[in-house]
C-alpha cells in the first residue's frame, strides 16, 4: 500500500506538472493541482499507509530544498502527506474504519468537506512553515507574497480535487443519459 501510493503520487505529480505547467503561479504552486484528488483518494483507500506513501514521495521532491531550509523541507512533506488523513480523522470521523467502510460512509457532502479541509490544512501549513522556518527557502523559490501563495495553493488544490473526483462522474452522467436514450428514441 505504501509503495503503491508512493508510486501513484509521484506519477500524478509529474503528470500534473507536465500537463498544467501553464497554471503554475509560483514554483510548485499551481492554480490547478489535480494530485490533491489523488491525495484524498489514497488516504481514503489506504488510510495511514497511503498518507505515509505520499509523505515519503514528497520528501523525495523536497530534497533540492535542503540547502535552503532543512526544517521546512522536513516538515512540509509531512503536512503534504498527512493533511488528508488528518482531515479525515478530525472532522469526518472516518479514520478508524477500514477502506471499504470509509467509502461506504462517504457521500458528496463528506467528500467535498474532506477536500476543502485537507486543502486548507495543507496550504495553511505550507504558508505557516515557509513564513516561520523557511523564509530564505520561500524567497529563493519565489514564494515572496505568502498570502497570495497560500490563496493560489488552496484554490489549486480545491479545484484540482473537485475536478479529478467529480469530472468522471459528470462525464458518466452526461454520456450515460445519452446512451440510455439511444439514437433511435428521437428528440
Amino acid at each position: 500500500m505504501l509503495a503503491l501510493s508512493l508510486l501513484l503520487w509521484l506519477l500524478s505529480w509529474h503528470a500534473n506538472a507536465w500537463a498544467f505547467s501553464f497554471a503554475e503561479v509560483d514554483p510548485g504552486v499551481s492554480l490547478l493541482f489535480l494530485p490533491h484528488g489523488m491525495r484524498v483518494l489514497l488516504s481514503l483507500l489506504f488510510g495511514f499507509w497511503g498518507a505515509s506513501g505520499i509523505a515519503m514521495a514528497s520528501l523525495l521532491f523536497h530534497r533540492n530544498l535542503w540547502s535552503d531550509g532543512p526544517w521546512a523541507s522536513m516538515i512540509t512533506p509531512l503536512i503534504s502527506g498527512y493533511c488528508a488523513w488528518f482531515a479525515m480523522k478530525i472532522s469526518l470521523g472516518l479514520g478508524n474504519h477500514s477502506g471499504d467502510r470509509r467509502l461506504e460512509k462517504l457521500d458528496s457532502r463528506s467528500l467535498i468537506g474532506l477536500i476543502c479541509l485537507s486543502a486548507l490544512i495543507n496550504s495553511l501549513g505550507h504558508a505557516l512553515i515557509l513564513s516561520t522556518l523557511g523564509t530564505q527557502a520561500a524567497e529563493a523559490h519565489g514564494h515572496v507574497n505568502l498570502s497570495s501563495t497560500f490563496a493560489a495553493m488552496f484554490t489549486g488544490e480545491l479545484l484540482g480535487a473537485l475536478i479529478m473526483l467529480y469530472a468522471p462522474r459528470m462525464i458518466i452522467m452526461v454520456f450515460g443519459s445519452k446512451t440510455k436514450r439511444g439514437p433511435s428514441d428521437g428528440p
Partner: protein
Amino acid sequence: MDHKLTDRENTTNRSGILQASARSGLCFAIWMTASIAHEWFLGFLHYRDGVDLLYLPHSLRIALVLAFGLSGALGMCLATATLILLAMAPDFTSPDANLLSIMVTAAQVFIDKPSTFASLILQALASGCCGWLALRILVPGRQASYAGMLVNLDLRTILSVVTIASVINSGVHVGAWLLLDADLGDASARFSVMLTGDVLGGVMGLVLITLSTRLFAREGKMT
C-alpha cells in the same frame, strides 16, 4: 361561496407576498449592514476592490437562505446591486447628492456601456444566489426544512456548502469583471484570493452562527 373562497385565497396570497417582501427587506438590511461593517472592521484584509482574504459576510449568504429561503437570496441580490450602484456613483456622499442624481449617474454608465449592466446583474445574482444554489445542489429536496438545518449544521455540511457557494460566487464575479473589460491585471490571483476569502470567512462565520443558535436554543429550552 366560490367568490368568498377566491377572496380568501387572494388575501392569503397577498399576505404571503407581503411576508416574503418583509423577509427580503430584512435580508437586504442585514446584508447592507454586514458589508459596511466588514469594510469598517476588516478593511485591512483587502486584496483589491471587492476581494478580501477573509470575507465573513459570505457566511450570511448561506445562513440567510437557510433562515428565509429564496426571499433571503432575493434580498441579498438587491443589496449587492445597490452597493455596486453606490460604488458607481462616487459622489453620493456629497451634500448635493440625492437619489435622483445617483440614479441618473448609474443610468448614464449603463447607457454608455451596456456590458456594465450585464456585469451588475451577474454579480448581484452570484452574490445573492450562490448559497441557495449550493444548498440546492448538496441538499436537494429539503427546501421546506432549511430553517431547521441552521441549528443542526455539522462541519461536513458547512464545509461542503461553503466550498460550492464560494466556487460559484468567485467564478461568476471574475467572469463578470472580465465582461466589463476591466483592467484586472491578475484575474487568476483575484479569483484565488476571493475563493480563499469566501471559504475562510464562510466557514468561520457559519461555525459561529451555528454555535450561537445552539446556545440560544439551549437557553430557550432551559427557560
